[in-house]
């Protein structure tokens, strides 16, 4: 009998619960999710599960009021839902932008970081640790930790440190310690493993702020709940501004926190199509021999497996070794994806699509020069999708601008220079070439 056959009806029922409740009680999304962690971490996971239920779900001690208040006053919520006039004209479709790039820190990441650091405070923890890829989550955690007066250590792959120096500086400015991770290829998955090791040693007084809807239960549901404010606002704003729901919602997908945050309140609206845009890198083919996937498209090209605490879709070789992923955007460069997103794709509720590096760069330049918004390279993938597939979409599209692109300017210059990007600015007269 296959292992999936042994799953109970009860688990399937749990998975089918309404969008915003799914997974809350047992962390299972169909056959995905769960808690695959070293035994030393299990008591901390149980303690966190208890705290999540008390403070987040049951609002004990007014946790959620304080969270909402801090999101408003410190974070600057709500963020606008803005009509993109030029893009609407270009695609002959109503395009609306959810402006998470205007959140404090410049990305949606603050929603979750602030929620978790505040929760750690309510739990009586004394120290915060986190890992970061592009640096956006690390920056948000460092800001939240400074705001709430908690000492904070951030692990970051050495390669990512070199790609994202401004964010490293921001983390340090906010008083966090940044520890380089040199194992493997020095990217996000190695940083996650290293942070888990720190946690295993310091679990009694330390909270690990996982930055996406990945990891062992309760992280995937808890992070989704903190990020769901994006779709809560977007749904209300869409109805208020346009008189109805959008036909399509588009969000880029790495680990999936921005994606699930943007989708959460729309999942039960079955007429709204949900599109998760993954990083197609240079190609969706994988080089099994070298253990390299030149993309980060776990939903598209991944297979079921167990990594970093959860069963989900992973980029792995036939032996189960995790592959090195790739994306022009280090924020999407991860070999796994949140278990809930894997489940929703299997259920055909979410449409997974992939956009390659070239199209993402075109999206980066297009949003910048048509709407005056420089997006993060992560976000740019969503606009690459819009350019390629706008004819397949309905008449009213919401795209989440998950973050702003200031952090990516060096990478964007370097990557643009290597390609012939049609809508890129010509800098040759200023520098003799970019």
């Amino acid at each position, binding site marked *: 009998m*296959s*292992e999936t056959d042994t799953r109970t009806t009860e688990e399937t029922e749990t998975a089918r619960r309404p969008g915003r409740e799914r997974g809350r009680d047992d962390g299972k999304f169909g056959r995905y999710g769960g808690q695959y962690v070293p*035994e030393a971490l*299990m008591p901390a996971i149980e303690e966190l599960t208890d705290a999540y239920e008390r403070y987040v779900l049951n609002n004990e001690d007014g946790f959620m009021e304080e969270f909402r208040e801090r999101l408003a006053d410190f974070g600057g919520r709500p963020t606008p839902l803005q009509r993109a006039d030029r893009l609407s004209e270009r695609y002959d479709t109503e395009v609306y932008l959810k402006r998470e790039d205007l959140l404090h820190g410049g990305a949606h990441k603050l929603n979750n970081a602030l929620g978790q650091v505040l929760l750690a405070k309510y739990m009586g923890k004394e120290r915060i640790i986190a890992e970061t890829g592009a640096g956006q989550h690390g920056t948000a955690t460092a800001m939240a930790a400074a705001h709430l007066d908690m000492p904070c250590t951030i692990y970051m792959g050495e390669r990512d440190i070199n790609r994202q120096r401004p964010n490293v500086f921001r983390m340090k400015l906010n008083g966090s310690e940044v520890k380089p991770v040199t194992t493997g290829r020095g990217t996000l*998955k190695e940083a996650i493993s290293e942070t888990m090791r720190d946690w*295993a040693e310091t679990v009694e007084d330390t909270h690990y702020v996982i930055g996406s809807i990945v990891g062992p239960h309760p992280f995937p549901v808890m992070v989704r709940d903190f990020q769901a404010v994006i779709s809560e606002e977007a749904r209300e704003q869409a109805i208020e501004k346009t008189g109805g729901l959008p036909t399509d919602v588009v969000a880029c997908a790495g680990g999936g926190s921005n994606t699930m945050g943007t989708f959460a309140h729309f999942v039960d609206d079955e007429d709204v199509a949900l599109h998760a845009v993954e990083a197609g890198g240079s190609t969706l083919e994988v080089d099994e021999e070298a253990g390299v996937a030149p993309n980060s498209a776990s939903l598209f090209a991944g297979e079921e497996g167990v990594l970093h605490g959860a069963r989900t879709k992973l980029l*792995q070789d036939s032996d*189960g070794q995790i592959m090195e992923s790739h994306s022009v955007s280090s924020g999407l460069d991860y070999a796994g994806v949140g278990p809930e997103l894997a489940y929703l794709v299997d259920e055909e509720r979410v449409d997974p699509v992939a956009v390659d590096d070239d199209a993402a760069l075109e999206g980066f330049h297009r949003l910048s020069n048509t709407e005056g918004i420089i997006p993060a390279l992560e976000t740019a993938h969503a606009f690459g999708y819009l350019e390629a597939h706008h004819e397949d979409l309905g008449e009213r599209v919401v795209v989440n601008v998950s973050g702003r692109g200031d952090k990516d300017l060096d990478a964007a210059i370097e990557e643009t220079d290597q390609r012939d990007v049609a809508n890129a600015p010509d800098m040759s007269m200023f520098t003799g070439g970019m």
Partner: protein
Amino acid sequence: MANSDALDAAFADGPAYVPYLVVGDPDYESSTAYVEALDRGGADVIELGLPFSEPIAEGSTIQEALVRSLDAGMTPDRFFAFAEDLEVDAALVCMTYYNLIYQYGKGEGPRPFVERAAAAGIQGLVVPDLPAEEADPLREACDEFGLDLIFIVAPTTRGDRLDRMMANVSGYVYVQARLGTTGARDDVSDQTTASLDRLGGYDVPKAVGFGISTGDHAERIVAGGADGIIVGSALVDVVAEGVAEDLSTAEVADRLEALSRELKQGAERGHRSRTGTVESA
């Protein structure tokens, strides 16, 4: 619910010495010589590490060994061939991460891995990222093929979790001496005694691991009530030194055998002092 007679036998006569090495570190042939040296040094059970690319429970010493092994081309199938080729008296246990076990089944769950392991002469499994709550499919496969499933009890494991784990464990229980990841330490944690005390009521051998690197540590751990000692990083360090200093395979094997003898003798001294204490009382 003991499955494997071999593991029962290993703990039957005095304290068990349970060394760990990463299979294929730094290469297949040297690794064979190293594991056989552990056997000559007095190993009762040998834990064979099958490398996974994301070993979140390991410290840097073992992680680097896993990378050396993977770089040298280790795969689950080569691992099983390695186990079959070994000429050792000690019982063999495979230590690896769940994704490799799961993926080996190609959609059929953990059963194919366990079936192959049993055919290769493996008598038990340790899976550091598989808590008892998620272990039912693997437990069933182990029962079917007569393998023991060994769980790790952490210093933080108590109450219902401990009961659930002890209801599922067989062979021996791996008592984690202190919080954190694997890695040799200069001293032995006080958390060990507390963990052994909590496990006193359970009728299964208790082997203590994490941080043991000398005969003196082994002696104190066994004198403190352990039925066995598990040693990983201190032995992997010897292999790593061999790589760094470009030593011959025979020289590294000699060092491993000598350290094994020291650890085994330390465990036996601890056992004598414990039974002596019991007799004088």
